[in-house]
C-alpha cells in the first residue's frame, strides 16, 4: 500500500517517463532475444554445451566466428574487386583494359597463354583442373590473372581497379585484426588478472566448477570425474612446485643440460621438416612446368601437384607426436608442458606455410639470364606468378578439407564401429578417441592463415573457406556426437577462448609477412593482373598520390616523414607507460585494501559481534 500511495502522488509527467522507460527496456530485451535467435547454429551449440561442456563449445563458437569472418571478407573482396571486373567484362560500363604496357618493359615479359582447355576434354582432365586450379579454372575470376581491367568509368567517375584491389586487401587484413582484437579484449582482461597471481584457482574450481548446463547424467558423471582429476592435478602440481624449489645444484645442472639437448633435437626435427617441404616444393614446381618455348604443358601428375600439401600435412601430423613424446623427458610441471608443446606445434604449422612460400619465391625470382633480369622474375616458367601462388594456396586449402573429411570418415567412424561391436580387450582398452580441442583448433587456424595469405592472389578464396568451414562444422559435430568421448582433462572456457584468439592473431601477423613481401618487394607480373603497368603492386599507391592536389600531397608526405613519425611514436610510448603505471598503482591499492580488511577484525572501533 506504501507503493500505491506513492504512485498516486507522482505527477503525470513522471508517470509517463517511468512507463515509457519500462516499455523501452522491454522492447530492447525482446530485440536482443530475437537477435540471439538469428544467431547461426544457436541450438546446435547449446546442445553441444549441454553434453560436452563449455570447453568444446568454445571450439564450435570459434568455428562460427571464422565462418562469419570469411563471409564478410568475401563480400568485401567481391563487391570491390570481382564485381566491377565482371561488370566491365560484360561491357556495361566503358572500361579500359590494361593492355598497353609501359614503354620500358621488354615485350617478352608480357606473353601469357594460359591453357584453358576449351572444347571437349576428358573428364579426368576436368577433375584434375578442378583440384589443382589449372586449366579452365585458371582463367576464371578465382585467380589473380583474370583481373586485367585498368579502370572502369561510371559516366565521369573513374574507378581505379588496381588501387581498389590493393586497398581491399589492406581492408580485409585490418578488419580481421580489429575484429580478433575486439573479441580477445574480454579474455585478455581476465587473463591479466589471473596470470599475475594464481590467487583464485582453487576457489574458482570449487565454487564455479560445476557446469549447471549439463542435463545428461552420463555427462554429469564425466564432469564429476574431470573435476576430481583437475583438483588432484592441481594439488599435485603444488607439491611438485615445492619439490622443484628444493632441488639441489647438481640436479638443476643435470636437468638444464638435458633440456638444452632436447631443444636441439626439437630444432633438428624442425629443420628436417622445413628442408623436406623445400625439396618437395622445388620438385613439384620443376616437374609441372615446361618453358613456353615448347608450348606444351606437361600433363603433370596430380600426386606431383599435391606433393607440397601432402608433405606439409604429414609434417603437421608427425611433429606434434614427436614433441609430446620428447617433452616427457624435460621434467616441467604439467601445465607448462602442455603450453610448451602447444607453442611448438603452433610454430611448426605456421612456419611450414612460410617455408612453402619461401621456396616458391626462390623459384620465381631465380634469374639466370639477362632477359629474365629485365622482367625481375622468371618469366619463362611463371609468366603470371601470382596465379601460381594462388593455385598453391588453393591446393593447400582443398587438400586440408579433403584430409579432414578423410580422417573423419576413415578413422573415426570405423574406430567407433570397432569399439561398439568388438568386445576384445585391446580394442576396449584403446576406446574412443577424445576430442582434442587444441589439435582441432590448430587445424582450423592453419586453414585460416592459408585463406588470409591466399586471398590477395585468389580473391574468391574466402568464399571457398566459408563453405569449407560451414561443412566442417557439421562434420565435426556429427563426429563429436557419435564417435568421441569427452576429454578427461577439462579445458576452462574463458582461458581457452583467449588462447584460440591469441594463436589466430599470431597466424594473422605471420600472414602479413608474405603479403608484404609480395606486394612491395617482388615485381608484379607484367603479363597478367591489374598491376601490369606498375613495377611492384605497391607502386600503384605512390602513383595515385601523385595524382592528388599538391596540398593533399604535401600533407601525406608530411605524415610519412620522420619528422612526424618519431614524435608520434614517442607519444604512444608515453601513453602506454602511463597505463602500465596506472595498472600497477591499482594493484597496489587492492593489496592495501585487503590488508586493511584483515586488520579491521582486530580494531575495537569496527569490531562487530559475530552473528
Amino acid at each position, binding site marked *: 500500500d506504501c507503493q500505491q500511495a506513492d504512485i498516486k502522488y507522482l505527477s503525470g509527467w513522471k508517470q509517463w517517463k517511468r512507463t515509457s522507460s519500462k516499455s523501452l527496456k522491454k522492447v530492447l*530485451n525482446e530485440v536482443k532475444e530475437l537477435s540471439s535467435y538469428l544467431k547461426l547454429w544457436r541450438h546446435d551449440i547449446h546442445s553441444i554445451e549441454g553434453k560436452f561442456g*563449455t570447453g568444446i563449445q568454445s571450439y564450435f563458437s570459434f568455428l562460427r566466428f571464422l565462418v562469419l569472418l570469411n563471409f564478410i571478407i568475401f563480400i568485401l573482396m567481391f563487391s570491390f574487386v570481382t564485381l566491377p571486373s565482371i561488370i566491365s567484362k560484360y561491357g556495361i560500363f566503358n572500361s579500359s583494359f590494361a593492355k598497353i604496357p609501359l614503354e620500358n618493359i621488354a615485350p617478352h615479359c608480357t606473353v601469357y597463354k594460359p591453357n584453358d582447355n576449351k572444347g571437349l576434354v576428358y573428364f579426368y582432365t576436368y577433375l584434375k583442373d578442378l583440384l589443382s586450379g589449372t586449366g579452365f579454372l585458371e582463367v576464371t575470376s578465382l585467380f589473380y590473372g583474370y583481373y586485367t581491367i585498368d579502370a572502369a568509368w561510371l559516366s565521369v567517375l573513374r574507378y581505379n581497379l588496381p588501387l581498389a584491389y590493393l586497398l581491399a586487401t589492406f581492408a580485409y587484413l585490418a578488419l580481421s585484426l580489429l575484429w580478433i582484437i575486439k573479441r580477445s579484449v574480454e579474455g585478455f582482461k*581476465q587473463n591479466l*588478472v*589471473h596470470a599475475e597471481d594464481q*590467487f*583464485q584457482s*582453487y*576457489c*574458482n574450481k*570449487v*565454487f*564455479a*566448477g*560445476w557446469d*549447471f548446463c*549439463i*542435463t*545428461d*547424467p552420463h*555427462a*554429469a*558423471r564425466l564432469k*564429476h*570425474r574431470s*573435476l*576430481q582429476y583437475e*583438483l*588432484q592435478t592441481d*594439488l599435485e602440481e*603444488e607439491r611438485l612446485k615445492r619439490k622443484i624449489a628444493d632441488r639441489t645444484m647438481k640436479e638443476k645442472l643435470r636437468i638444464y643440460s638435458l633440456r638444452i639437448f632436447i631443444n636441439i633435437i626439437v630444432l633438428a626435427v624442425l629443420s628436417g621438416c622445413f628442408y623436406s617441404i623445400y625439396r618437395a616444393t622445388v620438385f613439384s614446381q620443376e616437374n609441372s612446368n615446361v618453358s613456353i618455348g615448347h608450348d606444351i604443358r606437361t600433363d603433370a601428375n596430380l600426386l606431383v601437384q599435391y606433393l607440397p600439401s601432402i608433405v606439409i600435412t604429414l609434417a603437421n601430423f608427425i611433429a606434434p607426436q614427436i614433441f609430446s613424446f620428447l617433452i616427457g623427458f624435460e621434467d616441467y610441471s604439467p601445465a607448462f608442458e602442455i603450453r610448451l608443446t602447444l607453442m611448438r606445434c603452433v610454430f611448426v604449422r605456421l612456419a611450414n606455410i612460410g617455408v612453402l612460400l619461401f621456396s616458391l619465391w626462390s623459384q620465381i625470382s631465380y634469374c639466370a639470364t639477362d632477359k629474365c633480369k629485365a622482367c625481375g622474375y622468371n618469366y619463362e616458367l611463371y609468366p603470371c606468378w601470382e596465379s601460381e601462388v594462388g593455385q598453391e594456396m588453393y591446393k593447400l586449402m582443398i587438400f586440408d578439407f579433403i584430409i579432414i573429411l578423410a580422417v573423419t570418415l576413415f578413422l573415426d567412424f570405423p574406430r567407433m564401429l570397432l569399439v561398439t561391436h568388438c568386445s576384445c580387450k585391446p580394442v576396449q582398452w584403446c576406446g574412443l578417441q577424445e576430442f582434442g580441442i587444441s589439435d582441432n583448433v590448430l587445424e582450423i587456424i592453419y586453414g585460416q592463415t592459408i585463406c588470409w595469405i591466399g586471398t590477395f592472389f585468389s580473391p574468391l578464396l574466402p568464399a571457398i573457406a566459408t563453405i569449407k568451414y560451414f561443412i566442417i562444422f557439421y562434420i565435426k559435430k556429427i563426429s563429436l556426437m557419435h564417435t568421441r568421448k569427452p576429454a578427461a582433462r577439462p579445458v*576452462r*572456457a*574463458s582461458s581457452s577462448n583467449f588462447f584460440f584468439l591469441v594463436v589466430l592473431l599470431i597466424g594473422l601477423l605471420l600472414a602479413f609477412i608474405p603479403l608484404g613481401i609480395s606486394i612491395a618487394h617482388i615485381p608484379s607480373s607484367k603479363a597478367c593482373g591489374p598491376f601490369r603497368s606498375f613495377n611492384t603492386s605497391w607502386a600503384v599507391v605512390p602513383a595515385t598520390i601523385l595524382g592528388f592536389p599538391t596540398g593533399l600531397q604535401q600533407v601525406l608526405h608530411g605524415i610519412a616523414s620522420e619528422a612526424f613519425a618519431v614524435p608520434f611514436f614517442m607519444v604512444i610510448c608515453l601513453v602506454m607507460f602511463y597505463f602500465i603505471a596506472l595498472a600497477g598503482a591499482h594493484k597496489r591499492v587492492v593489496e592495501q585494501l*585487503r590488508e586493511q*580488511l*584483515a586488520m*579491521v*577484525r582486530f580494531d575495537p572501533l569496527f569490531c562487530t559481534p559475530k*552473528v
Partner: protein
Amino acid sequence: AYKRFSELLPKEERENARSARVPKSQILTLPELRANPFQHRICRVFSTSDDGDDSMSFEDFLDMLSVFSDSATSEIKSHYAFRIFDFDDDGTLDRKDLEKLVNCLTGQGEESRLSNAEMEQLIQNILEESDIDKDGTINLSEFQHVVSRSPDF
C-alpha cells in the same frame, strides 16, 4: 514456465496449480536438476514450505528459474549460491561445509573422493585464497568477493 510446473503435478491437481505444492521427488525429475549434485540443497533453499518437506509452490518455482536465468545479476546468483553451498544453514561456510561441497563436486561413491590429506590441502588453499579476515570460515561478503573475480561463475 507455468506449463512446465503444471506438468509436474498429478492430473487431478492441475486446475489449481497456482496454489498447489509439488513434492520434492517430482521436482527432482526435471532434467536440469536430475544430473545436478546440488539438487537437494537447491530444493531446500528455494522451498518455502513450513513443514520442512522441501515441496515447492509455483512462486518458489518461479524464484528458482529467475535466479538461474541468464539475466539475473551476479549479486543475486552469488547470494543464492552461498545459501546452496551452506550445508548446515549457519550463515557461513566452515570446513565441514567445504568438505561436503568438494565431495558433491567429485561425485558420489568411495573411489571418487579425495584422500584426507588432499582434502586438507585443498581446504587450506581455499581458505587461504578467500578468507580475508582469517577467521577460518567464509562469510557472504568474502564469498561474493571471490565469486566476482571468477570468470566462469
